[in-house]
């Protein structure tokens, strides 16, 4: 057996700050968050419905405008505006509408389409499969190594505790490819391809998934790369390129926002043992420490599907996202009350530290520094039990 030199040489940061939370403090924090949630949920109504429909109307207008402008490729600025318009429409569809509706955020409206059971979005990934890999796997096991498959999506090394091997020297390249082809990456996510290759998953297990992907992706491909181009007649090729461009814009943007949610410096990962038999309060703390926000304008928040409020989203995944901005200062105040970090930064900062992390983690740990400067220790059992 080889000596594990990674741990041996692992450099400690000089500035590491430890925060200790007692069992009771964590439970109290849980109550504070429950109370905030109850207050917002009790207030949901017509204005939230109107908000969703306003976004949907804007999305439809942008989509219509984008498709219409594809008919004038001979005036390049208009054609380019069309590509941009369609790209923005797809971003709105995936982020502020699809992601949020499929989380069940608008189930209370009891609408036929805009609920978590029926809704499917404008990407190649079937909503049904995404709800499994995202709503269930990622949101339940957030940042638990070995369980949350969003840590690296099975292809990237995104945490120091993930074992290094030479494959990860390509980390930056894989991340770039994932960014460009993001919708396809999201589609394949539920397959757990690396488990298939390693034989942990049988091909027969994925037959249903592949069928679903084929059904959904073929319709999406037909729409963007055959039907709409054909409907522009002589401009088939330019429309096809335009539609591909719109999908690419959406891919780069959604990837960027999503990677800023859990990977900037300061976000923590957890082990399965730590998280066993978690209380609601402990679950909340894990969500807070594992997520990061991005600050920006109202428009920026809408374009990011309010995933710029990733912390609020992870605490309250089924609360309508348009409520996150008003919840954010209260969540931050609760963090402050318990001395916890509230990880937020500009898009440039968060994106910069995410790419830096991807680059650093392509190398083995002994070659790089651990720059997480805060460690939060949570007391997992009540004091009485500890004494006994």
């Amino acid at each position: 057996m080889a000596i594990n030199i990674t741990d041996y040489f692992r450099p400690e940061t000089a500035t590491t700050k430890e925060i200790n939370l007692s069992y009771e403090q964590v439970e109290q924090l849980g109550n504070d968050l429950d109370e905030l949630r109850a207050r917002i949920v009790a207030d949901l109504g017509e204005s939230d419905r109107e908000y969703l429909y306003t976004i949907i109307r804007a999305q439809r207008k942008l989509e219509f405008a984008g498709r219409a402008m594809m008919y004038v490729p001979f005036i390049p600025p208009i054609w380019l505006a069309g590509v941009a318009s369609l790209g923005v429409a797809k971003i709105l569809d995936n982020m502020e509408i699809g992601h949020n509706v499929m989380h069940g955020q608008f189930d209370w409206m009891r609408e036929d389409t805009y609920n978590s059971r029926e809704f499917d979005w404008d990407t190649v990934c079937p909503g049904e499969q995404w709800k499994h890999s995202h709503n269930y796997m990622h949101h339940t096991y957030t940042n638990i190594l070995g369980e949350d498959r969003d840590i690296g999506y099975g292809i990237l090394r995104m945490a120091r505790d993930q074992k290094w091997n030479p494959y990860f020297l390509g980390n930056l390249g894989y991340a770039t490819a994932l960014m460009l082809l993001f919708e396809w990456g999201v589609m394949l996510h539920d397959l757990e391809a690396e488990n298939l290759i390693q034989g942990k998953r049988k091909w027969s297990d994925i037959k249903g998934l592949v069928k679903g992907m084929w059904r959904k992706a073929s319709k999406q491909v037909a729409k963007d790369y055959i039907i709409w181009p054909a409907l522009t007649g002589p401009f088939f090729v330019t429309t096809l390129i335009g539609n591909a461009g719109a999908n690419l814009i959406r891919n780069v943007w959604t990837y960027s926002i999503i990677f800023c949610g859990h990977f900037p410096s300061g976000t923590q990962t957890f082990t399965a043992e730590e998280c066993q038999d978690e209380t609601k309060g402990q679950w909340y703390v894990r969500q807070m420490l594992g997520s990061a926000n991005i600050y920006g304008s109202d428009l920026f928040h809408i374009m990011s599907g309010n995933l710029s409020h990733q912390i609020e989203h992870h605490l309250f995944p089924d609360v309508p996202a348009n409520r996150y901005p008003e919840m954010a200062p209260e969540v931050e105040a609760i963090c402050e009350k318990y001395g916890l970090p509230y990880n937020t930064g500009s898009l440039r900062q968060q994106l910069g530290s995410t790419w830096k992390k991807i680059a650093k983690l392509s190398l083995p740990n002994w070659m790089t520094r651990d720059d997480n400067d805060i460690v939060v220790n949570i007391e997992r059992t009540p004091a009485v039990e500890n004494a006994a």
Partner: protein
Amino acid sequence: MAHTLARLVESIVEATATPYPVDRYLELIDPMITWRDTRAKITEVRRQTDRSVTLVLKPTRQWKGHGAGQYVEVSVVVDGVRHRRFFSPAGAAQNTDALELTVTAHSGGFVSRYLRENARPGMVLGLSAASGEFSLPAQRPARTVLVSGGSGITPVLSMLRTLVAEGHRSPITFVHYARTPEDVPYRAELDALDRTFDHIDVQFHYTRTENAEHFAPAHLDGLADADGAQVFLCGPGTLMSAVKEYADERGLSDRVFSEAFTIDTSPVLDPNEPITGDITYTKSDVTTPNDGRTLLEQAEAAGLDPEYGCRMGICFSCTKVRTSGCTRNILTGELDSEPGQHIQICVSAPVGDVEIEV
């Protein structure tokens, strides 16, 4: 050829909108332009009595009309939430261009009260196709007896109007029970029919006047038991059981056709009371006594295997339809008993009898 072409156009239009139904685009232009959905616009609002509202609706082209006595599901958005209720159209079956509903605002009726207070021309409601077994037989009865109480008047009025419109000439008796004369919608029309046609007889009984009259056998003697008579009955539970008991005694049960209407109030149960009731898993055809745990845990204990994910109310994998009964959300303590609601069974505990589609 034309048909094939139409089908081709249809599939191209739907492919351009995928994954959304075309109606999700059209409704943003005008909710009355629909590709597949049925909707209806209110064209007229009349308040005939203190507690009711009569709506005349213009349905979209998908509407196929109703059979006299059938019901439709109507949906309306109140404070952001879409509520669905069943109502029986009151109009003649021959009138397929318009749909007439008379809604009685019961004291606990959330939707009926909302419509009574807020319905106005121009409002668009969701509409289902008509359904229901309670209807006139294709071979019209030799003698028709229509019995109704309160808001149960609408399906039998539809039957009466349908018979009148088709020039049906055999005897019809219309017996209606209401609190007071002022509580009878369509009273003028019914009086006029009574006066105009010899074969139509309209009788009113009032239950909250000085000489209060509840159902008595004398009201139907000589009518329900006459040769070839068929009785169509719709009204509150007390009237229905009184008439059915009467029919049983006279051996007339096979001639009585009825439909119960329920008032849309939710019984509020006290979750602090001792645990009672049975859980019925309707899809699995299993019933077990309620032990107070969540529906997911109890289903598993009963040997069933419903889909689930997080088991803490966040991922919505375990959402199922609660057909009837009351459940308590264990995270919020909130009670809900509206029939047909989707609930997360991992965080819903049954209170009393519950039927769930598992």
